[in-house]
């Protein structure tokens, strides 16, 4: 632990959004009124498809976009009308947005210079951050002479050197190649454990969300679909949208109807017993499906379409009652070499969603 770690940990503030709204005009409401609370020191990932308003939300917190309505509280202070520099937020951008004509040192020291921090202290603080991010050898280089990963580290350094109350990331890893993205993810995770800054990380990549987040906030067209820990979101998705967004391959969703005693697929096959009537959407994760080659119990019959062998496991795609169902199975190629499969969908692993709203319904059925 050195001084800058503790300083940032001490500065970490909680964030409260109260009825925060963003509308460009009456038709284009990007964020309908939103209420959410982020705890101090927490790493929140905002996850959603592109265009759902993630950047807008982040920039409203940062002060780069005005809120149309509502309040933003940082550490108990109302900030929605303050200039960005007075909100105690720092931001890391997707395309780094480093100043091309300044050296790494000048890039990191710029905010301190603007704030009127004395030269000696500037140098000391930049040096401490550079050491933490393994950038000490590059301080005199220009951004153009650095690799993508190094540039991203400089951008992170530029953000944390001010010891902000809140760290904001807008898809910072999406410009990096797969290997580097993985390394940076690990680095970010370690950094967060060290400095404990309140962090909001925007991404459309569910792997980043699952690996980095204390809690994930899933956004759909500006609305919160679910806000919970990665584990809870994985095991208890609150809606079809969430279920389809998390997991690779994502959860299978099949339309079913209940007649009061059993749930049937569109082609009449029985998948489970349940005292339910009406239309539902049934969800099951690819890895929860048990594959057999003989009919038994409530096993449903599916026709294999194709198979992808990934070494550790295979992903099968099969036709089931008019939809395509994906199955992740540890069994190798030899075992499943026939078109007809019998799939067992364990009742405890089934998720049931309302057919119209897509929200999760009565878990009571799964307990049976």
């Amino acid at each position, binding site marked *: 632990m050195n001084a800058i770690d503790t300083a940032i940990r001490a500065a970490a503030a909680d964030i409260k959004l109260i009825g925060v709204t963003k509308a460009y005009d009456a038709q284009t409401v990007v964020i309908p009124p939103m209420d959410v609370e982020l705890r101090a020191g927490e790493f929140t990932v905002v996850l959603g498809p592109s265009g759902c308003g993630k950047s807008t939300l982040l920039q409203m917190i940062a002060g780069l976009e005005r809120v149309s309505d509502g309040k933003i509280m940082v550490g108990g202070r109302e900030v929605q009308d303050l200039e960005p520099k007075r909100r105690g937020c720092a931001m890391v951008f997707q395309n780094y947005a480093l*100043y091309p*004509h300044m050296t790494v040192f000048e890039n990191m020291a710029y905010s301190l210079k603007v704030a009127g921090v004395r030269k000696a202290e500037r140098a000391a603080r930049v040096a401490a951050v550079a050491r933490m991010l393994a950038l000490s050898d590059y301080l005199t280089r220009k951004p153009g002479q650095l690799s993508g990963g190094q540039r991203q580290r400089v951008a992170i350094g530029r953000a944390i050197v001010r010891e902000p109350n809140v760290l904001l990331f807008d898809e910072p890893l999406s410009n990096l190649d797969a290997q580097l993205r993985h390394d940076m993810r690990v680095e970010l995770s370690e950094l967060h454990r060290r400095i404990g800054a309140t962090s909001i990380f925007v991404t459309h990549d569910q792997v980043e969300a699952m690996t980095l987040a204390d809690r994930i906030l899933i956004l759909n067209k500006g609305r919160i679909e679910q806000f919970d820990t990665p584990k809870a979101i994985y095991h208890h998705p609150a809606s079809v949208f969430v279920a389809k967004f998390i997991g690779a391959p994502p959860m299978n969703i099949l339309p079913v109807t209940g007649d009061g005693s059993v749930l049937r697929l569109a082609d009449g096959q029985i998948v489970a017993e349940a005292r339910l009537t009406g239309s539902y959407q049934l969800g099951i994760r690819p890895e929860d499906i048990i594959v057999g080659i003989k009919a038994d119990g409530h096993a449903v019959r599916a026709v294999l379409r194709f198979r992808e062998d990934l070494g550790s496991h295979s992903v099968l795609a099969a036709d089931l009652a008019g939809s395509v169902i994906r199955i992740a199975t540890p069994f190798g190629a030899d075992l499943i070499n026939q078109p007809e499969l019998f799939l067992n969908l364990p009742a405890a692993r089934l998720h049931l969603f309302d057919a119209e709203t897509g929200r999760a319904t009565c878990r009571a059925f799964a307990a049976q």
Partner: protein
Amino acid sequence: MVENARSLNIIASLILVVGMIYILGPLYLTLSTASQSYEFMLRNGLAWYPGDQFLANMASIFTETRIPIQMLNSMVVAFSNAAATCVLSFLSAYAIVYFRIRWAGVVFALILATIMLPLDIRVITTYQVASNIFSPLNAVLDATGLNGLIAGIFGTPVQLELSVLNTHFGLVAPLVAHGTGTFLFRQFFLTLPKDLFKAARMDGAGPTRFLFDILLPLSRTSFAALFVLTFLSGWTQYLWPLVGASTPDMQTAVVGLARLVPDSDGQVPDFPMIMAGAVIVSIIPLAMIALLQRYLVQGLVLSEK
């Protein structure tokens, strides 16, 4: 193709030689004429070979004509034109690119329209405005009936008058109203990382600091390129200085050169001296290009590094 490479080469070289003669021929004639005496030219016509009167002709430009003072005028006009265009273009492009302005597209289109309506087309109206820069205001007051109202109250309508003809300001101002620079800077700004402005705001730098700390240093080469281009165009302007300045002491060197040809018929102009003058007048732009040519290329490539 390949087997004919030799003959092709010869043809290509021939075309090149013809092109060079086309360009260098007049240049050679300028220099050779400038080095002959007036009497030589009267006797022999075109000077096909150089003589020994070059320095004498140069000296007579300085002693017998107003070219030196007119070159000072050219210097003032070209330099002010370049400096004012750079500042104005930089600021207008900054506003258009970095601020959410209503009608920004329309404003930019209007600025671009000045490229399609050069001064040579607008020379008569420009002259009218320059002869009284308040004439548009007067016209508006008349047209809206405001002047009638004012006359009713104060007894006399507003008729302001201020002529900028035959002043340095009057020579420069119409040249500055040109959109090329704005276009150049706008294109350059659009090549910069798009979140730069936001990053600077997060770092606590407002629009002014961003302008001076970030944008200005990044735009150095664009500035140099635009400066050279507008300086050259200001130096070589002919039509506007011709009508905008009426006394020899206000005219620019290019106009002064043309005036060295006597108006009356029958007298053969002193071409050796005029050509010596042309050489002298060309030295400044040539030096400019030689010095700043590197930036000119870099700036027009329009990208960082």
